[in-house]
């Protein structure tokens, strides 16, 4: 008797890859277990998943958002403890941290992938204008100024109405350089730094400067608009996450070559920091009737085979498996290569700090967009975030 496992996911984008690559590979190796990948539109995923779990109609396998969203499910007893899964050994503690209890005693999702922030650029445009990818902040602005002067290209493709672009691809992209990655993030968590400290305000100041380099009407430029501006060759630089690689390549369809550069450092010789953010894991519905089969599948997800399949099918989603994965995509290789000499960190707001209301992550979206729009000064925005955080987060209350 075959068992069918249903996978809940927000990754509509991956439907084809699952159907064509991942599921056949698993089913071939594990006869008797069928997989049904049932993605939901991402915006609704959390709400739908929670409702289904509460009512008891959710699928067997649950794609895990990082940190609190999943932790909450685990605490409610809706995600099973996977600490004893053999393949957990394949992941570093950092990789697992996104799906662990705060004390690290229990792990409840198998890490699948992380994403890295940086900047994509249009190589053809750079060549045309005789530009080199910038290393330092000064160079970065110099390049932007040149592009702007020339006028052929929009210097940078980004809009503010979706807000998360500004926060994720702006603030979280360049920020670690200023708050010194993990060091700053941990300090914030233990209360020894405040959001009004220089390291946290400076990224906002930088963002405020970006305003001049964005396209006309960026206030109403949506995320797809930005993507299109870049892929259609109208913008030269695109503040990005690595996930865009797989999205952009077919869209550019060879019209120009894409390059990537890491977030610029303040001065030559500084340590570079990158956001290498744990993004996707997969866990087991505690109420699943097919727990054994599901565990079999989860073991496989933790395997090298899966890591390689997934990372290559989805360039830009980097495996968290400790065993390095061979990647074919050049731009993806570029991103991953930063891991070698830069300090990685995860997005500052994700762990613990977004547990209360107001929610620091959402506030940061809003603040980043406001700062770029010029409707709020960096200092005021930082002040507001700090106040909001301190209103519920004890370590920040003294």
């Amino acid at each position: 008797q075959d068992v069918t496992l249903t996978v809940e996911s927000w990754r509509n984008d991956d439907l084809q890859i699952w159907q064509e690559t991942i599921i056949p590979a698993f089913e071939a190796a594990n006869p008797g277990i069928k997989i049904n990948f049932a993605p939901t539109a991402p915006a609704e995923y959390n709400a739908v998943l929670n409702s289904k779990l509460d009512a008891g109609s959710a699928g067997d396998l649950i794609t895990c958002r990082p940190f609190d969203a999943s932790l909450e499910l685990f605490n409610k007893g809706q995600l099973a403890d996977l600490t004893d899964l053999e393949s957990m050994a394949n992941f570093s503690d950092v990789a697992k941290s996104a799906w662990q209890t705060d004390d690290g005693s229990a792990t409840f999702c198998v890490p699948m992938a992380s994403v890295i922030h940086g900047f994509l650029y249009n190589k053809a445009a750079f060549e045309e204008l005789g530009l080199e990818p910038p290393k330092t902040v000064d160079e970065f602005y110099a390049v932007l100024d040149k592009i702007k002067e020339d006028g052929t290209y929009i210097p940078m493709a980004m809009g503010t109405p979706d807000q998360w672009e500004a926060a994720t691809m702006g603030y979280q992209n360049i920020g670690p350089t200023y708050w010194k990655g993990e060091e700053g993030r941990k300090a914030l968590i233990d209360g020894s730094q405040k959001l009004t400290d220089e390291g946290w305000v400076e990224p906002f100041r930088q963002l405020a400067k970006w305003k001049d380099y964005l396209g006309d009407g960026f206030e109403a430029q949506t995320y797809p608009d930005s993507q299109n501006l870049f892929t259609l060759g109208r913008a030269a630089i695109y503040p990005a996450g690595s996930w865009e690689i797989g999205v952009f390549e077919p869209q550019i369809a060879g019209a120009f070559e894409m390059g990537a550069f890491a977030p610029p450092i303040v001065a030559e010789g500084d340590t570079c920091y990158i956001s290498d953010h744990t993004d996707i894991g997969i866990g087991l519905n505690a109420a699943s009737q097919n727990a054994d089969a599901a565990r079999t599948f989860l073991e496989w997800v933790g395997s090298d085979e899966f890591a390689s399949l997934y990372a290559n099918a989805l360039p830009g989603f980097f495996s968290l498996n400790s065993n390095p994965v061979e990647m074919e995509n050049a731009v993806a290789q570029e991103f991953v290569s930063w891991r070698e000499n830069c300090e990685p960190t995860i997005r500052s707001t994700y762990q613990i700090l977004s547990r209360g209301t107001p929610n620091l992550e959402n506030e940061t979206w809003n603040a980043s967009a406001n700062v770029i729009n010029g409707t709020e000064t960096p200092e005021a925005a930082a002040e507001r975030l700090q106040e909001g955080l301190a209103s519920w987060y004890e370590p920040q209350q003294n």
Partner: protein
Amino acid sequence: MARRKGFRWHIAVFLAPAVLVYTAIMIIPLIGTLNLSLFGKGETGRVFVGLANFATLFGDPRWSAAFWNALANNAWFFLVHMLVQNPVGVMLAALLSSPRLRMAAFYRTAIFVPTILSFVIVGFVWKLILSPIWGIAPNMLDAVGLKSLFAPWLGREGTALTTLALVSVWQFVGIPMMLIYAALLSIPDEVIEAAEMDGVTGWPQFWKIKLPLILPSIGIISVLTFVGNFNAFDLIYVSQGALAGPNFATDLLGTFLYRTFFGFQLQLGDPHMGATIATAMFGIILVGVCIYLFAIQTRLRRYQF
């Protein structure tokens, strides 16, 4: 109608199916949910907190600021509908109902088409039209030399809400139109003919004869608009996201509620505060509807034709 002794079974029979389905599938679940507003999250699950959640909502400056912001936006959203959607709907219906208007069916159908569209499409197409980048609107303004009038309306705090309200008007104007149209058609021909003989034609005819006769329908439309607007959510959600940007300028009670109840991005859903907001919204709407039901509806005269 004669008063009749005994239990009138047919009333029960007429009411039963609706009341049963509605109670079982709508009221009980909703009461269960609204009930959550009296509870909070404790160490061991749910604890009774009385009205503490309401105290938070109205007392905590963060919560209350967000709430009042949403409420004020909502009021404006409603006002735009009342001032634009309903008059336009009534006007269109009045035009459509003029006797022997050719192509009336075509107009009626065409004007109703936006109402049929899903929010996803409406959000997409208007963002596309108003986009400063791909801009149909800027190009069209450019064509008539008015490019300078263009602004990224959806992205500016001052204009985003009004723009969306107008998009919503565009989408839903078919509803008042249809209701008024049905009401206008039920006015007997002879009464209209008598008015024509009396020299009451055109606009005066509309004001003096038709409008008083369709007033109850206009009342209904107003209350439906009110309820619909104070529950509005989807259009904002698909076009501006759950954070209702820019800077919450388009936040309505509905988006505020959704965000709180179901959570958004890293924000976890908080059913208790969500239910609290829902209860507050429900209270606001209930007050509005009661005003209509008990103060206005009973005063509107209805005429049997």
